Protein backbone atom coordinates (compact mmCIF):
# COMPACT_ATOMS: atom_id res chain seq x y z
CA UNK A 1 0.00 0.00 0.00
CA UNK A 2 1.56 3.29 -1.10
CA UNK A 3 1.56 6.54 0.89
CA UNK A 4 -1.13 7.96 -1.42
CA UNK A 5 -3.46 5.06 -0.57
CA UNK A 6 -3.02 5.67 3.15
CA UNK A 7 -3.77 9.37 2.70
CA UNK A 8 -6.87 8.48 0.64
CA UNK A 9 -8.14 6.18 3.41
CA UNK A 10 -7.49 8.72 6.18
CA UNK A 11 -9.20 11.46 4.13
CA UNK A 12 -12.28 9.30 3.54
CA UNK A 13 -12.42 8.46 7.26
CA UNK A 14 -12.25 12.16 8.20
CA UNK A 15 -15.11 12.91 5.77
CA UNK A 16 -17.13 10.06 7.33
CA UNK A 17 -16.49 11.57 10.78
CA UNK A 18 -17.63 15.00 9.56
CA UNK A 19 -20.81 13.49 8.10
CA UNK A 20 -21.47 11.75 11.43
CA UNK A 21 -21.16 15.11 13.22
CA UNK A 22 -23.71 16.59 10.78
CA UNK A 23 -26.10 13.73 11.59
CA UNK A 24 -25.59 14.15 15.34
CA UNK A 25 -26.33 17.87 15.03
CA UNK A 26 -29.52 17.23 13.06
CA UNK A 27 -30.63 14.69 15.69
CA UNK A 28 -29.99 17.23 18.46
CA UNK A 29 -31.80 19.90 16.48
CA UNK A 30 -34.90 17.72 16.37
CA UNK A 31 -34.79 16.39 19.95
CA UNK A 32 -33.62 19.31 22.11
CA UNK A 33 -36.29 21.33 23.93
CA UNK A 34 -35.51 25.02 23.26
CA UNK A 35 -33.63 27.31 20.88
CA UNK A 36 -30.55 27.75 23.07
CA UNK A 37 -29.87 24.01 23.37
CA UNK A 38 -30.63 23.54 19.66
CA UNK A 39 -27.99 26.17 18.92
CA UNK A 40 -25.55 24.14 21.02
CA UNK A 41 -26.22 21.13 18.79
CA UNK A 42 -26.01 23.18 15.58
CA UNK A 43 -22.47 24.41 16.31
CA UNK A 44 -20.93 20.94 15.89
CA UNK A 45 -21.06 20.55 12.06
CA UNK A 46 -20.28 24.23 11.57
CA UNK A 47 -16.91 24.22 13.32
CA UNK A 48 -15.42 20.77 14.02
CA UNK A 49 -17.35 19.08 11.19
CA UNK A 50 -16.27 21.60 8.56
CA UNK A 51 -12.63 21.39 9.69
CA UNK A 52 -12.72 17.58 9.51
CA UNK A 53 -14.33 17.70 6.06
CA UNK A 54 -11.78 20.23 4.76
CA UNK A 55 -8.90 18.10 6.08
CA UNK A 56 -10.41 14.98 4.51
CA UNK A 57 -10.90 16.59 1.09
CA UNK A 58 -7.37 18.00 1.13
CA UNK A 59 -5.88 14.61 2.08
CA UNK A 60 -7.54 12.96 -0.89
CA UNK A 61 -7.08 15.75 -3.47
CA UNK A 62 -3.48 16.77 -2.45
CA UNK A 63 -3.12 19.98 -4.52
CA UNK A 64 -2.00 23.43 -3.34
CA UNK A 65 -4.91 25.30 -4.95
CA UNK A 66 -7.48 23.17 -3.13
CA UNK A 67 -5.46 23.62 0.08
CA UNK A 68 -5.85 27.42 -0.13
CA UNK A 69 -9.60 27.25 -0.75
CA UNK A 70 -10.18 24.68 2.02
CA UNK A 71 -8.17 26.69 4.57
CA UNK A 72 -10.26 29.72 3.62
CA UNK A 73 -13.50 27.74 4.10
CA UNK A 74 -12.44 26.52 7.56
CA UNK A 75 -11.17 29.96 8.64
CA UNK A 76 -14.34 31.74 7.47
CA UNK A 77 -16.52 29.21 9.28
CA UNK A 78 -14.48 29.61 12.48
CA UNK A 79 -14.81 33.42 12.25
CA UNK A 80 -18.50 33.64 11.34
CA UNK A 81 -20.17 30.82 13.33
CA UNK A 82 -19.69 32.54 16.76
CA UNK A 83 -21.01 35.85 15.39
CA UNK A 84 -24.23 34.40 14.01
CA UNK A 85 -24.69 32.23 17.13
CA UNK A 86 -24.25 35.30 19.34
CA UNK A 87 -26.81 37.32 17.36
CA UNK A 88 -29.36 34.50 17.42
CA UNK A 89 -28.81 33.93 21.15
CA UNK A 90 -29.18 37.65 21.87
CA UNK A 91 -32.48 37.77 20.00
CA UNK A 92 -33.65 34.62 21.78
CA UNK A 93 -32.97 36.13 25.21
CA UNK A 94 -34.52 39.51 24.38
CA UNK A 95 -37.73 37.96 23.11
CA UNK A 96 -37.78 35.68 26.18
CA UNK A 97 -37.83 32.37 24.32
CA UNK A 98 -35.46 30.87 26.91
CA UNK A 99 -36.79 27.97 29.00
CA UNK A 100 -35.88 29.45 32.39
CA UNK A 101 -36.69 26.16 34.16
CA UNK A 102 -33.92 24.43 32.16
CA UNK A 103 -31.21 26.95 33.08
CA UNK A 104 -28.88 26.08 35.96
CA UNK A 105 -27.67 29.71 36.24
CA UNK A 106 -28.94 32.92 34.63
CA UNK A 107 -26.35 35.61 35.41
CA UNK A 108 -27.74 37.99 32.79
CA UNK A 109 -31.16 38.06 34.49
CA UNK A 110 -29.53 39.05 37.80
CA UNK A 111 -27.56 41.83 36.10
CA UNK A 112 -30.63 43.08 34.21
CA UNK A 113 -32.69 43.24 37.42
CA UNK A 114 -29.86 45.18 39.10
CA UNK A 115 -29.80 47.63 36.15
CA UNK A 116 -33.52 48.36 36.52
CA UNK A 117 -34.94 46.08 33.84
CA UNK A 118 -37.83 43.76 34.51
CA UNK A 119 -39.70 41.15 32.54
CA UNK A 120 -42.58 42.90 30.78
CA UNK A 121 -46.01 41.50 29.97
CA UNK A 122 -46.30 38.65 27.52
CA UNK A 123 -46.84 39.68 23.86
CA UNK A 124 -50.37 38.25 23.86
CA UNK A 125 -51.26 39.86 27.22
CA UNK A 126 -53.87 42.50 26.34
CA UNK A 127 -54.93 43.53 29.89
CA UNK A 128 -54.39 47.23 30.65
CA UNK A 129 -52.79 48.33 33.93
CA UNK A 130 -55.47 49.75 36.32
CA UNK A 131 -53.83 53.22 36.73
CA UNK A 132 -54.09 53.76 32.96
CA UNK A 133 -57.89 53.27 33.08
CA UNK A 134 -58.26 55.75 35.96
CA UNK A 135 -56.36 58.44 34.07
CA UNK A 136 -58.30 57.98 30.85
CA UNK A 137 -61.80 58.20 32.42
Amino acid at each position, binding site marked *: *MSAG*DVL*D*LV*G*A*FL*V*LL*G*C*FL*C*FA*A*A*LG*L*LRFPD*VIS*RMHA*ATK*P*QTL*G*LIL*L*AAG*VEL*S*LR*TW*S*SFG*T*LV*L*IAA*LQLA*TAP*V*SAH*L*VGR*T*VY*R*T*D*QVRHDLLARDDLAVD*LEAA*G*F*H*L*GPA*PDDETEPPE*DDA*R*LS
Partner: protein
Amino acid sequence: MSPVHIAVLVMVGLGAVLLVGAATLTVARMARGPSSLDRVVAADVLVAVVIATLAAEAIINDHSTTLPVMLVLSLLGFAGAVSIARFVAERDLAIRWRHADRPDPDSSGRRQQ
Protein backbone atom coordinates in the same frame (compact mmCIF):
# COMPACT_ATOMS: atom_id res chain seq x y z
CA MET B 1 -10.71 -1.00 -8.99
CA SER B 2 -8.23 -1.43 -6.18
CA PRO B 3 -9.39 -2.46 -2.69
CA VAL B 4 -8.29 0.94 -1.33
CA HIS B 5 -10.53 2.69 -3.85
CA ILE B 6 -13.46 0.45 -2.87
CA ALA B 7 -12.84 1.14 0.83
CA VAL B 8 -12.82 4.91 0.18
CA LEU B 9 -16.08 4.66 -1.78
CA VAL B 10 -17.73 2.62 1.00
CA MET B 11 -16.71 5.10 3.72
CA VAL B 12 -17.77 8.20 1.79
CA GLY B 13 -20.98 6.47 0.69
CA LEU B 14 -21.78 5.72 4.35
CA GLY B 15 -21.16 9.41 5.06
CA ALA B 16 -23.55 10.34 2.25
CA VAL B 17 -26.28 8.16 3.82
CA LEU B 18 -25.71 9.96 7.16
CA LEU B 19 -25.98 13.29 5.33
CA VAL B 20 -29.33 12.32 3.81
CA GLY B 21 -30.61 11.47 7.30
CA ALA B 22 -29.23 14.74 8.67
CA ALA B 23 -30.89 16.79 5.92
CA THR B 24 -34.22 15.03 6.52
CA LEU B 25 -34.16 15.70 10.27
CA THR B 26 -33.12 19.33 9.73
CA VAL B 27 -35.93 19.96 7.23
CA ALA B 28 -38.34 18.42 9.76
CA ARG B 29 -37.20 20.95 12.38
CA MET B 30 -37.52 23.78 9.84
CA ALA B 31 -41.07 22.74 9.04
CA ARG B 32 -42.06 22.38 12.71
CA GLY B 33 -40.56 25.65 13.92
CA PRO B 34 -42.05 26.75 16.26
CA SER B 35 -40.33 30.17 16.12
CA SER B 36 -38.47 31.80 13.24
CA LEU B 37 -35.23 31.54 15.26
CA ASP B 38 -35.54 27.74 15.29
CA ARG B 39 -35.78 27.91 11.51
CA VAL B 40 -32.70 30.16 11.34
CA VAL B 41 -30.63 27.65 13.32
CA ALA B 42 -31.98 24.77 11.21
CA ALA B 43 -31.14 26.65 7.99
CA ASP B 44 -27.58 27.15 9.24
CA VAL B 45 -27.24 23.39 9.82
CA LEU B 46 -28.77 22.68 6.41
CA VAL B 47 -26.13 24.86 4.73
CA ALA B 48 -23.42 22.93 6.62
CA VAL B 49 -24.98 19.65 5.41
CA VAL B 50 -24.93 20.89 1.80
CA ILE B 51 -21.25 21.86 2.16
CA ALA B 52 -20.50 18.37 3.53
CA THR B 53 -22.36 16.82 0.59
CA LEU B 54 -20.24 18.81 -1.86
CA ALA B 55 -17.08 17.66 -0.04
CA ALA B 56 -18.16 14.00 -0.28
CA GLU B 57 -18.94 14.46 -3.98
CA ALA B 58 -15.51 16.05 -4.57
CA ILE B 59 -13.82 13.00 -3.01
CA ILE B 60 -15.92 10.42 -4.90
CA ASN B 61 -15.37 12.06 -8.31
CA ASP B 62 -11.82 13.22 -7.46
CA HIS B 63 -12.15 16.84 -8.66
CA SER B 64 -11.91 20.30 -7.05
CA THR B 65 -14.58 22.08 -9.15
CA THR B 66 -17.05 22.48 -6.28
CA LEU B 67 -14.61 24.01 -3.78
CA PRO B 68 -15.54 27.65 -4.69
CA VAL B 69 -19.21 26.69 -4.29
CA MET B 70 -18.44 25.44 -0.75
CA LEU B 71 -16.67 28.74 -0.02
CA VAL B 72 -19.61 30.85 -1.20
CA LEU B 73 -22.11 28.66 0.69
CA SER B 74 -20.24 29.05 3.98
CA LEU B 75 -20.46 32.85 3.56
CA LEU B 76 -24.13 32.79 2.52
CA GLY B 77 -25.17 30.76 5.57
CA PHE B 78 -23.60 33.36 7.84
CA ALA B 79 -25.22 36.30 6.03
CA GLY B 80 -28.65 34.65 6.13
CA ALA B 81 -28.49 33.84 9.84
CA VAL B 82 -27.28 37.32 10.81
CA SER B 83 -29.82 39.22 8.71
CA ILE B 84 -32.79 37.15 9.88
CA ALA B 85 -31.73 37.26 13.54
CA ARG B 86 -31.10 41.01 13.35
CA PHE B 87 -34.15 42.27 11.51
CA VAL B 88 -37.00 39.77 11.22
CA ALA B 89 -37.13 38.20 14.68
CA GLU B 90 -36.86 41.43 16.67
CA ARG B 91 -39.54 43.04 14.54
CA ASP B 92 -42.02 40.18 14.72
CA LEU B 93 -41.83 39.35 18.41
CA ALA B 94 -42.48 41.76 21.28
CA ILE B 95 -39.39 42.42 23.39
CA ARG B 96 -40.24 41.52 26.98
CA TRP B 97 -37.33 42.94 29.00
CA ARG B 98 -38.27 46.58 29.73
CA HIS B 99 -36.57 49.31 31.75
CA ALA B 100 -38.62 50.50 34.72
CA ASP B 101 -37.80 54.22 34.26
CA ARG B 102 -38.52 54.41 30.55
CA PRO B 103 -42.10 54.41 29.26
CA ASP B 104 -43.19 51.48 27.18
CA PRO B 105 -43.21 52.67 23.51
CA ASP B 106 -46.38 50.69 22.71
CA SER B 107 -48.51 51.87 25.64
CA SER B 108 -47.30 55.52 25.40
CA GLY B 109 -48.58 55.55 21.82
CA ARG B 110 -51.96 54.35 23.05
CA ARG B 111 -52.09 56.99 25.85
CA GLN B 112 -51.78 59.85 23.35
CA GLN B 113 -54.97 58.86 21.56
